């Protein structure tokens, strides 16, 4: 189990589950940050982290488990409302989740964590734990009424050096009021001229003074020295007014907790045992009863002088001496310390290091390979029987378990005694006979040597109760006897809800299905060829017609199948939108901007390939908006805008496409500056720039030569890499448009096809070959008489419905000699009128052919780098069709 490998199916199951849980936790945390009262969110996050912790324990990933465990504890404290979830806490938790996510990636690749994982886990976990531990100091203690000594002492108290605690304890015993201070300066306080260390050192009569880091230290190079990351804990017995006076400027960042002597007790040392302690316990208890504190002190001092100084109980004696010599002794505390020295436990729990010894008597019955497990099962049955004595319901399963255990261990000889014990138990309405049987079984004696199973008289007193039902006979569940307090449970059963049926399928399987259907669509295309051959080669018109009829049916089915499988491939845009709240939040904090992100239409779905490819372009656009579009709050305020900028991510479905908009209300793009920069960059000349409309000028930012220019980025208000956005989106068959109003904001709109699985192309003949042209590029097809083609210098154009359309010859574009035209042929050119970047272009080709659906495959191998082609498609007759990329070509 502890040797995961690539072939470990359990690990393979774990990885997707872990990712899902991490995603759910991160999402929940962000919701919580917005609304800390979101109960379902905290439960969701807590549970996701909890499940992750449990599952991760199955693998050799202790560092991961440790970190997740720390996060779980912190979330537990948040859920219990012990600590408040603030932004810094969310940051820490998100960082931890990110780390875990990295480790999950590592597990997937290498089946083990990186070598530094332990160190990273300890550092991050202690950071998280520090927040759990400090839960009583900064947030809650300030609101608590400090005059009430009954409140729980701050947990950090026990992180103070024990010598300081001892000093405080003695002063408290002498009647001083000891104050515990936690001073957590505002992180930005250095800018206000505060020096927290100096301020903290002003606290008078400090008995303890400790400094700790609020968040764990990263590498020193990453440290922001002007961001205060320290917290101070101080113990003082100066009067509160004096303390307050000393740090009067920092009061709102200091919490005061009065602590009692008892709060300061911290006993440490090795466990020990022996009659001297029992003797002392007896003597001191008597002295306590007599109220003779001096005698107690003397007894303690004496015993302490001849027991080992490193012992826990010895240490307890020293605290006791101080407590007993107090000017105003706390009698309960003295009693508790006598108990501590006498029994090895202070306050009933917690501090004692004395470990409970397990009874390890060797036995005959329970020896063997299953012995240890059998013992723990038997111990469990004692607990399962409950504290309330005879309970018919509890008895049933315990009897079944013990019976099964005897069978499993092969202890047939004991079964009779066991059945007798059960009968006696029911008759006496007491668990005693069964408990005795268990005792005997555990201690290795023979249950047959049990005392006669006469029920004890004191127990049979309950005979007026109804007799017990039949003994449980076997583990096989049968209909129960009926009477019993189980009516309520019955009613609960109908609450069972039908779970939503979803099936998780590997992406590869869907891809395969998709490919197969693609092949089907393509093979189906061969039927018209077959029909043609049937008619032309074999002269059978009937056969040809029948094939065409069959083709129509198969065509319809194939299209429906394609539609259905495309539905499977559809993902909601929330898949990418979900990253943005976190991203925007982090970036905004980093940039010191205030941004309100709103997301609309996240249910809008599109093909998975599109959704997945869209992440990066969107990221660019959003980042640019944050970096350059949205102003600092002060600038906004000065411009008469709200300090908080709004950033909207919207998705909606339109016709057969998806529209995604990123809209900000930032400073907008200045067309004049764009023009100037474009001229300077040599992207366009001054004349051209003058002719551009504002909108056209804005569009310039997507010109490769323009937007990759670094020095432009700040001028334009848009950053680098916008041409990348354009390229990606256009590869997906989409469009990008930007509208902007200076001073009011910018909207970037991406329009994408719903699916890119199937492309409709028109097959054209040109330059001695057959090519495919994507249908969405083609505005119309016209045949233009030679006479109507006008030549302006070397360029050609024709007029179509009063619009001059430039003409280009495909043969020229492809670098192939133009087809020789027969002289008798009618002088007419086939022209594809295409729409490219909003402009119309006429492409002269040899002839039009049919339109068809194809599965577009990107160019591969030697062809991969070829310009002018967007891919290939397989034709029904087995030939490969090259699909032209007109944008590149022209």
């Amino acid at each position: 189990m502890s040797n995961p490998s690539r072939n470990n199916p359990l690990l393979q199951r774990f990885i997707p589950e872990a990712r899902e849980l991490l995603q759910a936790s991160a999402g929940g945390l962000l919701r919580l940050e917005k609304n800390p009262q979101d109960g379902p969110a905290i439960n969701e996050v807590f549970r996701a982290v909890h499940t992750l912790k449990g599952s991760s324990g199955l693998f050799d990933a202790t560092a991961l488990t440790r970190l997740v465990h720390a996060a779980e504890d912190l979330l537990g404290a948040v859920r219990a409302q012990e600590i408040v979830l603030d932004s810094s806490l969310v940051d820490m938790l998100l960082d931890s989740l990110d780390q875990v996510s990295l480790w999950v990636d590592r597990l997937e690749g290498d089946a083990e964590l990186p070598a530094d994982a332990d160190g990273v886990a300890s550092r991050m976990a202690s950071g998280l734990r520090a927040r759990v531990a400090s839960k009583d100091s900064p947030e809650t203690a300030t609101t608590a009424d400090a005059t009430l000594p009954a409140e729980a002492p701050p947990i950090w108290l026990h992180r103070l050096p024990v010598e300081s605690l001892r000093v405080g304890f003695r002063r408290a015993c002498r009647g001083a009021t000891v104050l515990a201070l936690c001073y957590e300066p505002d992180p930005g306080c250095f800018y206000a001229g505060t020096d927290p260390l100096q301020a903290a050192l002003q606290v008078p009569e400090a008995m303890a003074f400790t400094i700790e880091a609020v968040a764990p230290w990263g590498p020193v190079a990453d440290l922001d020295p002007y961001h205060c990351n320290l917290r101070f804990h101080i113990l003082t017995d100066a009067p509160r007014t004096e303390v307050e006076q000393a740090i009067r400027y920092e009061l709102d960042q200091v919490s005061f907790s009065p602590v009692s002597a008892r709060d300061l007790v911290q006993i440490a040392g090795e466990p020990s045992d022996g009659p001297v302690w029992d003797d002392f316990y007896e003597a001191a208890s008597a002295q306590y009863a007599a109220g003779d504190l001096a005698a107690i002190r003397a007894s303690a001092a004496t015993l302490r002088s001849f027991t080992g100084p490193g012992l826990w109980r010895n240490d307890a004696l020293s605290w006791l001496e101080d407590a007993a010599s107090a000017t105003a002794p706390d009698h309960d505390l003295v009693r508790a310390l006598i108990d501590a020295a006498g029994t090895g436990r202070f306050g009933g729990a917690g501090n004692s290091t004395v470990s409970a010894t397990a009874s390890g008597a060797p036995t005959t019955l329970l020896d063997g390979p299953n012995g240890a497990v059998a013992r723990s099962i038997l111990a469990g049955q004692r607990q399962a029987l409950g504290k309330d004595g005879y309970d018919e319901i509890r008895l049933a399963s315990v009897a079944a378990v013990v019976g099964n255990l005897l069978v499993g261990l092969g202890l047939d000889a004991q079964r009779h005694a066991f059945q007798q014990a059960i009968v006696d138990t029911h008759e006496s309405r007491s668990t005693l006979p069964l408990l005795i049987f268990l005792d005997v079984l555990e201690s290795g004696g023979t249950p047959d040597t049990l005392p006669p199973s006469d029920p004890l008289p004191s127990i049979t007193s309950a005979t007026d109760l109804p007799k017990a039902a039949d003994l449980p006979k076997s583990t096989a569940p049968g209909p129960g006897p009926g009477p019993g307090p189980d009516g309520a449970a019955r009613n609960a059963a109908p609450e069972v809800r039908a779970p939503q049926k979803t099936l998780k399928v590997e992406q590869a399987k869907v891809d395969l299905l998709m490919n197969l259907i693609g092949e089907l669509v393509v093979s189906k295309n061969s039927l018209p060829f077959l029909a043609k051959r049937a008619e032309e080669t074999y002269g059978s018109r009937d056969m040809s017609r029948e094939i065409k009829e069959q083709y129509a049916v198969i065509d319809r089915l194939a299209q429906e199948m394609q539609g259905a499988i495309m539905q499977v491939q559809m993902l909601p845009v929330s898949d990418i939108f979900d990253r943005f709240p976190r991203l925007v939040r982090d970036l905004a904090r980093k940039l010191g901007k205030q941004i309100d992100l709103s997301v609309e239409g996240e249910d809008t779905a599109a093909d998975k390939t599109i959704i997945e490819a869209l992440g990066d372009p969107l990221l660019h656009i959003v980042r640019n908006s944050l970096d350059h579009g949205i102003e600092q709050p002060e600038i906004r305020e000065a411009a008469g805008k709200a300090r908080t900028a709004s950033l909207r991510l919207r998705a909606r479905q339109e016709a057969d496409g998806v529209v995604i908009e990123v809209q900000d209300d930032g400073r907008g793009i200045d067309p004049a500056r764009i023009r100037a920069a474009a001229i300077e960059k040599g992207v366009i000349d001054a004349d051209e720039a003058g002719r551009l409309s504002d909108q056209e000028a804005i569009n310039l930012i997507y010109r490769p030569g323009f937007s990759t220019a670094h020095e432009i980025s700040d001028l334009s208000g848009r950053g680098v890499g916008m041409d990348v956005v354009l390229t990606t989106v256009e590869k997906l068959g989409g469009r990008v448009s930007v509208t902007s109003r200076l001073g009011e904001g910018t909207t970037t709109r991406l329009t994408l096809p719903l699916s890119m699985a199937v492309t409709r192309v028109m097959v054209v003949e040109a330059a001695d070959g057959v090519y495919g042209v994507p249908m969405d590029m083609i505005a119309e097809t016209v045949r233009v008489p030679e006479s109507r083609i006008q030549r302006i210098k070397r360029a050609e154009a024709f007029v179509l419905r009063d619009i001059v359309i430039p003409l280009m010859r495909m043969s020229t574009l492809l670098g192939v000699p133009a087809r020789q035209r027969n002289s008798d042929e009618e002088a007419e050119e086939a022209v594809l009128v295409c729409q490219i970047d909003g402009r119309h272009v006429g492409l002269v080709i040899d002839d039009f052919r049919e339109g068809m659906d194809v599965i577009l495959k990107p160019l591969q191998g030697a062809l991969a780098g070829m310009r002018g082609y967007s891919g290939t498609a397989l034709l029904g007759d087995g030939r490969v069709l090259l699909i032209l990329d007109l944008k590149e070509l022209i």
Partner: protein
Amino acid sequence: MPLRIARTTVHFEGHCSVEEALDLQAFFGRVKVPKVVLTQCAGLHTALLQVLAAARPASIAPPSDPTLAQAIMPFLSGIGADR
């Protein structure tokens, strides 16, 4: 000059103020085995203290001022011991 850097050692002298923080940070970024001498230090700004804490220098000579030494040395040496 409150912060004096001599090769791999930085000496704190007198009252060291917040303005020195970036220089100190740069020093730790530059020097592989940095040493810190606080002997002559009469006081240091919190910003410097946290740079020291984050940098975990190989050795720190404590301030001769006992109050300051008591206040900061357990913190600084505790951090070193943790890792």
